[in-house]
C-alpha cells in the first residue's frame, strides 16, 4: 500500500471481478511481450515522507545557505522582497491543484484573477492587451519574434547586442528553428544601442528587439525608435519593476512588450519557474500567443469570465495555431497579481525609487574608490556595470568569503572582458550592507 493510492487489495479484487479479469497483469496484456520483457527498474526503494524530507534537506544544504549571504545578483532575476501574503494565498489548494479553466463555471476564481493580471500588466506597460503569461522572459521574447514574423510576413530581425545574453541564446535557437534571420545592433560607449545602425538596416525588416533597461542596466532612450522603423514591429523587453519610474513601452510606440515577471513576487528558484510577460496592441490580438481570459455574461446577464479567443490556440487550430503553447505559468502569474495588488497604485513607484536610490548610492560610492570605474556614463535603474582593475572573478571569490554574492562576472558572456562586474541592488539591501560591500570590494 502507498499513501497516495487509496485502493486496497480488496478493492482491486472487487474491481477486477466486476470487469471480469483475474489479475492486474491482464490489464497490461495489450503491451507487446517484447516490450514488457525488456523492462528494467530504476533501482530505488520507496521511502517514508520523513526520510525523503531528510534526504532533500541534505541535498539542499549542499548549496550555499542564502541566509548567510547578501545578494547583489541580477542579470534578469532579482532578490526582491516577497510579502508573506503572496506565499500564503497561493498555497490555497483551490488555486494550485486546479488546471487550465476548461470548465468556466467551476473556474471563476482562476479566470477572474487572470483577467485582473492582464489588466495590471496593461496598466504597467501602457499596452492594450496582455496574455495570462508565457514561460519566462527569454522564451516570451522568442514568441514575440515569431508573432512579429506572422504579422509582417518578413524574416529579418535586428536584435540589440546589449540584450540579456541568455535571452539572445533562446532567440537564436528559435530563429534558427523557424528560419529567421538575426542581425546584431551594436552598442556604443554609452552602453546604449546604436540607432544609426538601425537606420542603415531597415530593408525587409520584421522587427527590432531591444531591452530597456538593457543587460548592463543602462536605460535606453527609445522615444524615436518606432518612427525610425515604421511598419516593422518594435519589441521591447523590460523589467516590470523599472516601469514604476520609467516611461512604459506603450508610450513610446512598442508593438509588443515582453518581460520577465519574476521580480513581481516570484522566488528565483534557480531560474525557474519564472513568469513570461507578454502584451501587445489590440489590433494584433488575434496573432497573439498564450491564454487569455475575457469578460462576458451568463444566461442571467451576470458578469463572468471565460477563456477568450481560443480559436488562436493549438487545441483548436492545431498546425495553424498562433503558437504551440498550452500550459503557461499560471501560479506565478497569480503570485504577481497578488503582489501588485498589495503594492498598489503608488507602491510600485515607491518600490522602483527605492531600487533606484540604493543602486545609485552604491554605484556612486564604489566609483569613488580606487580601482573601480562606472563603465557607462548613462542613466541606469537598479543594476550597473563597474569596471574593476582587478579580475572580477577574484573579487567575487573574496567577497563570497565575506558573505557577499557581489555581482556577476561579465567575462563568460563575451560582451565585455573579465574586468567588469554587473551589480544589482534591490529594496532589500540596507545602507549598512552597501557600505560593507564597498569596503569588502575595495580591500579585496
Amino acid at each position, binding site marked *: 500500500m502507498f499513501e*497516495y493510492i487509496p485502493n486496497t487489495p480488496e478493492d482491486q479484487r472487487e474491481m477486477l471481478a466486476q470487469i471480469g479479469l483475474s489479475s492486474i497483469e491482464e490489464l497490461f496484456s495489450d503491451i507487446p511481450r517484447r516490450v514488457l520483457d525488456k523492462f528494467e527498474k530504476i533501482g530505488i526503494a520507496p521511502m517514508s515522507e520523513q526520510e525523503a524530507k531528510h534526504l532533500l534537506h541534505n541535498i539542499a544544504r549542499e548549496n550555499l545557505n542564502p541566509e548567510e549571504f547578501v545578494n547583489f545578483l541580477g542579470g534578469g532575476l532579482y532578490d526582491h522582497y516577497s510579502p508573506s501574503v503572496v506565499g500564503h494565498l497561493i498555497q490555497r489548494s483551490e488555486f494550485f491543484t486546479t488546471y487550465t479553466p476548461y470548465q468556466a463555471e467551476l473556474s471563476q476564481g482562476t479566470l477572474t484573477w487572470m483577467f*485582473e493580471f492582464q489588466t495590471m500588466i496593461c496598466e504597467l506597460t501602457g499596452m492594450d492587451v496582455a496574455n495570462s503569461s508565457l514561460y519566462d522572459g527569454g522564451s516570451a521574447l522568442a514568441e514575440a519574434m515569431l508573432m512579429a514574423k506572422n504579422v509582417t510576413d518578413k524574416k529579418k530581425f535586428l536584435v540589440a547586442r546589449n540584450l540579456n545574453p541568455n535571452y539572445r541564446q533562446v532567440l537564436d535557437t528559435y530563429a534558427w528553428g523557424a528560419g529567421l534571420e538575426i542581425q546584431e545592433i551594436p552598442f556604443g560607449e554609452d552602453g546604449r544601442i546604436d540607432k544609426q545602425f538601425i537606420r542603415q538596416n531597415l530593408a525587409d525588416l520584421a522587427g527590432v528587439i531591444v531591452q530597456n533597461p538593457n543587460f548592463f542596466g543602462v536605460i535606453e532612450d527609445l522615444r524615436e525608435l518606432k518612427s525610425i522603423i515604421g511598419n516593422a514591429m518594435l519589441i521591447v523587453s523590460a523589467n516590470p519593476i523599472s516601469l514604476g519610474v520609467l516611461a512604459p513601452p506603450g508610450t513610446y510606440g512598442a508593438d509588443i512588450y515582453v518581460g520577465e515577471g519574476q521580480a513581481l513576487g516570484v522566488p528565483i528558484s534557480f531560474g525557474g*519557474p519564472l513568469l513570461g510577460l507578454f502584451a501587445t496592441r489590440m489590433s494584433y490580438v488575434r496573432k497573439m500567443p498564450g491564454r487569455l481570459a475575457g469578460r462576458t455574461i451568463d444566461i442571467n446577464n451576470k458578469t463572468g469570465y471565460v477563456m477568450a479567443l481560443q480559436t488562436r490556440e493549438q487545441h483548436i487550430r492545431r498546425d495553424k495555431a498562433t503558437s504551440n503553447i498550452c500550459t503557461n505559468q499560471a501560479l506565478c502569474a497569480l503570485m504577481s497579481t497578488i503582489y501588485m495588488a498589495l503594492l498598489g497604485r503608488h507602491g510600485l513607484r515607491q518600490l522602483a525609487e527605492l531600487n533606484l536610490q540604493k543602486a545609485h548610492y552604491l554605484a556612486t560610492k564604489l566609483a569613488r574608490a580606487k580601482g573601480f570605474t562606472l563603465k557607462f556614463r548613462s542613466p541606469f535603474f537598479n543594476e550597473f556595470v563597474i569596471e574593476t582593475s582587478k579580475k572580477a572573478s577574484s573579487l567575487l571569490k573574496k567577497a563570497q568569503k565575506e558573505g557577499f554574492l557581489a555581482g556577476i562576472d561579465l567575462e563568460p558572456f563575451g560582451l565585455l572582458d573579465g574586468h567588469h562586474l554587473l551589480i544589482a541592488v534591490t529594496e532589500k539591501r540596507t545602507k549598512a550592507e552597501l557600505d560593507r560591500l564597498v569596503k569588502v570590494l575595495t580591500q579585496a
Partner: protein
Amino acid sequence: MPTIFEIGKPGRHGLRLPDLDFEEKPIEELLPSELIRKEDPKLPEVSQIEVVRHYTKLSKMNYGVDDGIYPLGSCTMKYNPRINEETSRFAPFAAAHPFQGEAPSQGCLRLMHELSQILCKIAGLDAITLQPVAGAHGELTGMLLIKKYFEKRGELHKRKKILLPDSAHGTNPASAAALGFEIVELKSNEHGMVDVASLKPHMDETVAGMMLTNPNTLGLFEEDILRITEMVHEAGGFVYYDGANMNAIVGQARPGDMGVDIMHYNLHKTFTTPHGGGGPGAGPIAVVKSLAPYLPIPMIGLRKKEGEYYFDYERPDSIGKVHSFYGNFGMLVRAYTYIRIMGDEGLRAVSANAVLNANYMFHRLKSVYKAPFDRICKHEFVITSKGMNEHLRTLDIAKRLIDFGVHPSSIYFPLIVPEVMMIEPTETVSKKEMDYFVDSLLQIAREMDENPQILKSAPHITPVKRLDDVRAAREPILRG
C-alpha cells in the same frame, strides 16, 4: 464577483515598504526627466485584509484536485503531495540564483543530475534535458533536435514531413508546424489505432519523424507500436513520443523499448507537480544516443573523481537554449521528491491502479454510454453521448455533472469521436469516489429521457451559470 479593482479606496495600500536609510537624491538628478513615468499605473488601492479576503473568495470559486475527483482525460489530475511543496521551498533551493556559480549550487546540480538519470531509466533512453518547461515546450525542443540532426547530415531539404495520427494532442501539429515541418495527419483505423497499412505509402526519404502518444488519446495502447517504430526507422525518421499519458505505463514498460527516439515527460502529470491553474509545468525530454549531441545547453555533468557537478556548455552541436535558465527547477525538486518516496515499487503501483480504475469506470459506464472502442483501456477511456438524445450534447452532460459536485471529464477531445467524453480517474481516487461519479453519469443518462431541460439549464450550483463564449470572442473584453 467584483475584481480587485472594484474594491478598496484611494489612499489604501497592502504593503509598507522600508524607509530609505540614507539621504534621498532628487529623482531628476538620477534620471533624465523625459524618460520618467508621468502617471502611476492604475493598480488597485486595497488594504492587506482586503487582498486576502478577495483572493480567498476567488479560490472558493474554483474546483481543485483537493475538492474531489477531477477526471480530465490526458491531464492526469492526481493528488499533489504536500511534502513536495515543502521540499521545493527549502531556502537554499528557492533562493538559489542561476548566476551564483557552480560551487554554491552543488545541491541544485546534484538533484538535476540524479533526476536526469532516473528519468532516463524510466524512459529507457540514453540522455535527457530538463530545460523545457512544459510538454509543448518539450515537443518544440524535440522537433528542433530532429531538425538539427538532418541539417548536420545535409538532409534537411528533403526531410520535411512529420506524421501524426488524427487523435494527437493539438500541441503536436502546432509544435512541428512552428518549425516549418509539413504535417501529415493519419486517419486512425476502426480500432482507434494507427493504421499500419496507411502509414506505408508515406514511408520514404521525406520523413523526418512521427509523433505518437502511447497509450493514445483514446486510452488505447498502440498494438502495432513495434512495427510502427521499425517502419519509421527504416525510412530514416525519428519517433517522437508524447509522454502525456505516461501515467499508464510508468513502472511497467519503457518507451525506449518500443523503439521511441525522443519523449517528453509532463512532470505535472505523471510526477505530481501541481497544475497550478494552468502551470508552471515541466517537460523534460529524453533521447537516444544519436540525438544527444544536439540537446540544449547546458547539460549537467559530474566530475566523478572530485565528486563535483558542473554545467557543461562545451557542446558544439547543441541547438542552443530554449529557456532563459535551466528549466523549471522548482518543479524538478517536487518530481524528484515524489519519485524517491514512491520508488520502483510505488511507480509500478501508480500505473497498475490508474489502469485498473479506468477499466473499472469504463466497464460500469459502457452499458449506458456508447464505447466507440470497446476493449481494455489504459489509464483513460472515451465514451460518447451520440445517439442518446438528439437535443442534448456532451457539453450539457458535463455542465450537469457539475451539479453533482464533481469536475467533468475532458470533452470534445480527441477530435475523432463525436460528442466524446475522455475520462481519466488516476490512481489517487477511491472506489467510492469513482462509483459516485459513475452513478452521477448514469443518473444524468436517465435525466436525458425524463428531464432533458435540467441538463440544458445546468449548472445550477455555481456562482455563474452558463457563460456566453461567443460574445467573448466577438467583442473581446480582455482588461478591466
